[in-house]
């Protein structure tokens, strides 16, 4: 007697169901929700190996014209797994999470002697300079607070936010090393411990407070990846949420950082040594809609017309902002731009130099900025420490013009010599110029 065929049929149906499920799974790969069902390959010329990041991240902006996608690809800077097509495996080994310029991983991501980890002579020492700069070490503030509360006798920095050392010192005030300031160091006075606990969020080694107006990334991206007031992303990558703070506005690096980017740390309020707390400024609208004149500086500040019409980086060039490669104790040791740098004094014209070398760093920097028309042979202004302001030219007829790095506007730079200025040539501090030239805010 033959057995019923029904069990076999059911088993065959079960197998067919399994096959159908396999087919279904094959047609709906994990990256399908992002739009592309076919993996998108990118073969950068630098590595020659295919990368499939764009399968999900299709639509993301090219990071910058100096880092073309077809040359660099994604993995060279971000790390990760080029062949993988699901998020978890693809992002294994990602350098610095979303931000490969975070100082914990910047050497691996942005370094290399051909890139940003080279020598000072070639002008490729960006990483070394920014890691030792005061914006990264915060050494000045720490030294001042420790000095104020008796933890150290002078104002020379001993501590930084993270331990850093610099064996080659090129300036008179350079330091060989700084230790990390630890919040749990009970040998420190209570106020210094409070500083270590609460006040160390405005430096390049960490990301910012997660509040509107403070939004910036860590590392190089702190200045070079512009964020909006809310810190939301508004670019073309579908995998990045639009309603989340903590993002740069777009996947773009720029050398033309606007004043608003500097103001994610600067001009946000004041510290009080009395209660060791940060008091945010209260004069601004909370939605970031305050006009430039109101937003630029704090209510207590004095400033002249150029100091709010221009952006910060139009005067405070890379040599000051990124540091000179040495560890310093105070801003004053690196700051070199003064009013007279561009405007001169009654008896002296601004210091200048001519660009004669086609490999001149000023030319390379200028080429990154589309507004600049700097040419070989032009004469540019320098500070008395030698920092070049390549956006301030002396025309052949003797007039000085400044091109704003951010807006591209060309300004005539009035000269003190031959004007009605009543300055004391020996007093070149900004406050002296502000006595007459400061602006009243409405």
């Amino acid at each position, binding site marked *: 007697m033959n*057995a019923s065929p029904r*069990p*076999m049929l059911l*088993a*065959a149906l*079960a*197998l067919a*169901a*399994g*096959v159908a*499920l*396999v087919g*279904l*799974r*094959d047609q709906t790969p994990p990256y399908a929700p992002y739009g592309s069902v076919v*993996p998108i390959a990118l073969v950068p010329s630098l590595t020659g190996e295919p990368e*499939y990041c764009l399968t999900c991240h299709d639509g993301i902006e090219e990071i910058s014209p100096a880092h073309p996608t077809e040359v660099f690809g994604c993995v060279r800077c971000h790390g*990760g*797994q080029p*062949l*993988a*097509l*699901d998020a978890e*495996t693809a992002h*294994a*080994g990602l350098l610095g999470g979303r931000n490969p310029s975070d100082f914990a991983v910047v050497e691996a991501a942005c370094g290399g002697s051909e890139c940003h980890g080279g020598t000072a002579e070639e002008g490729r020492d960006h990483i070394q300079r920014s890691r030792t700069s005061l914006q990264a070490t915060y050494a000045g503030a720490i030294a001042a607070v420790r000095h104020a509360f008796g933890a150290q006798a002078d104002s020379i920095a001993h501590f930084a936010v993270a331990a850093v050392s610099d064996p080659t010192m090129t300036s008179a005030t350079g330091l060989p090393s700084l230790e990390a300031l630890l919040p749990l160091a009970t040998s420190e006075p209570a106020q210094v411990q409070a500083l270590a606990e609460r006040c160390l969020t405005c430096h390049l080694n960490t990301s910012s407070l997660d509040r509107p107006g403070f939004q910036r990334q860590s590392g190089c991206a702190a200045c070079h990846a512009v964020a909006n007031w809310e810190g939301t992303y508004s670019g073309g990558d579908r995998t990045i949420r639009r309603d989340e703070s903590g993002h740069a506005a777009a996947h773009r690096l720029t050398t033309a950082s606007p004043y608003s980017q500097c103001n994610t740390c600067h001009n946000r309020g004041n510290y009080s040594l009395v209660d060791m707390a940060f008091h945010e400024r209260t004069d601004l609208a909370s939605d970031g809609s305050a006009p430039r004149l109101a937003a630029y500086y704090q209510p207590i500040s004095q400033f002249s017309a150029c100091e709010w019409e221009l952006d910060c980086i139009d005067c405070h060039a890379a040599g000051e902002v990124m540091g000179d490669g040495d560890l310093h104790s105070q801003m004053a040791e690196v700051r070199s731009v003064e009013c007279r740098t561009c405007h001169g004094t009654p008896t002296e014209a601004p210091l200048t130099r001519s660009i004669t070398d086609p490999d001149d760093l000023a030319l390379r920097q200028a080429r990154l900025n589309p507004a600049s028309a700097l040419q070989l042979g032009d004469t540019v202004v320098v500070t008395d420490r030698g920092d070049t302001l390549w956006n301030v030219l002396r025309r052949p007829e003797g007039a000085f013009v400044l091109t704003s790095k951010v807006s591209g506007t060309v300004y005539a730079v009035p000269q003190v010599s031959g004007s009605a200025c009543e300055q004391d040539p020996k007093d070149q501090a900004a406050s002296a110029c502000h006595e007459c030239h400061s602006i009243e805010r409405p």
Partner: protein
Amino acid sequence: MSSATARPSFFEHLHPPSIPEAQARFRYTLGLGGLSAFFFLVVSLSGALLLFYYSPSAEQANASIQLLQYHVPLGWLMRGLHFWSGQALVVTAGLHLLRVALTGGHRGRRRFNWLLGLALLVLVLGLDFSGYGLRWDASIGWALLVGTNLLRQVPLLGEGLYRWAVGGPGLGEATVLRLFGWHVFGLMLPALALLVWHLFRVRRDGGIAHAPPAADEPTPRLPRRELVRGELLAMLLAGSALLIVASLAAPALDGPLDSAALSTEVHAPWFFLWIQELLRLGDPLWLGVALPLAALTLLALLPYSIDRGTILGRWLPRDGRIAQVLALALALGWGLLTLRGVLR
């Protein structure tokens, strides 16, 4: 295919013309031995297909698995089938061992086959562990280090075993190729040979252990056509289960192993979690080598010295309490240690 008068097929010929129905009861054997054989077949075939794309070098191993998982058409399926049939094999082999121990199937002339099965289990665990290592990714890095260092602890033979396994003074380039050789050939071939011998011994020892029939009772027999049909049914169901699980759950894959950046979460593969838990308690030689070996020895001696009973063919026979308690205790110990490892 074949009617009652047609000649038997190849598959039918692999079986005796008929077997006593008492041997074929599903509730008695739970089909675990057969399922193990099926999973062994699937794991071998899927592994053979994976051979076409997997690259056993330290630089390329992880990348070749990513290629399989994401780019080769249905490569994800081959990998999934290979992984899940392998893990299912370990489970059914272990349960099969427990079933045999609890039904007295290791008694009498079947004692030697019990040893063969035990050796098969050890080889299958070795195959599973070497297979994990072939991923060469960050999550198996520490497990591989610990596992191979544990080999070193074996007295006298330890260093030699370690070198044989790892191919050098430490984990490195040669290790992937070594693991590959062990996985695909060095452990596989003995496993295949033992499997064939194991199945042969089942037949030679009189088939699946069953109570000898009383003199006047009828002894119905199951023709091999029905037996093959039943096996086919089981294979279809197990196969569809494998396909469903492989579609819904992919085996994990981490980035390539980079000794500078090993993950902080360190897990042994699930079937060795019990050893990891033991090793938390102290000396690697006593806890990592001696204790597991002692358990294995006890199991091996089960039909020779520990179990003297004679009743066959039923669950939990009365005359085998000591052996049953031992088997259950070992299983419980394994289970509790593994649970502890899972819950961490």
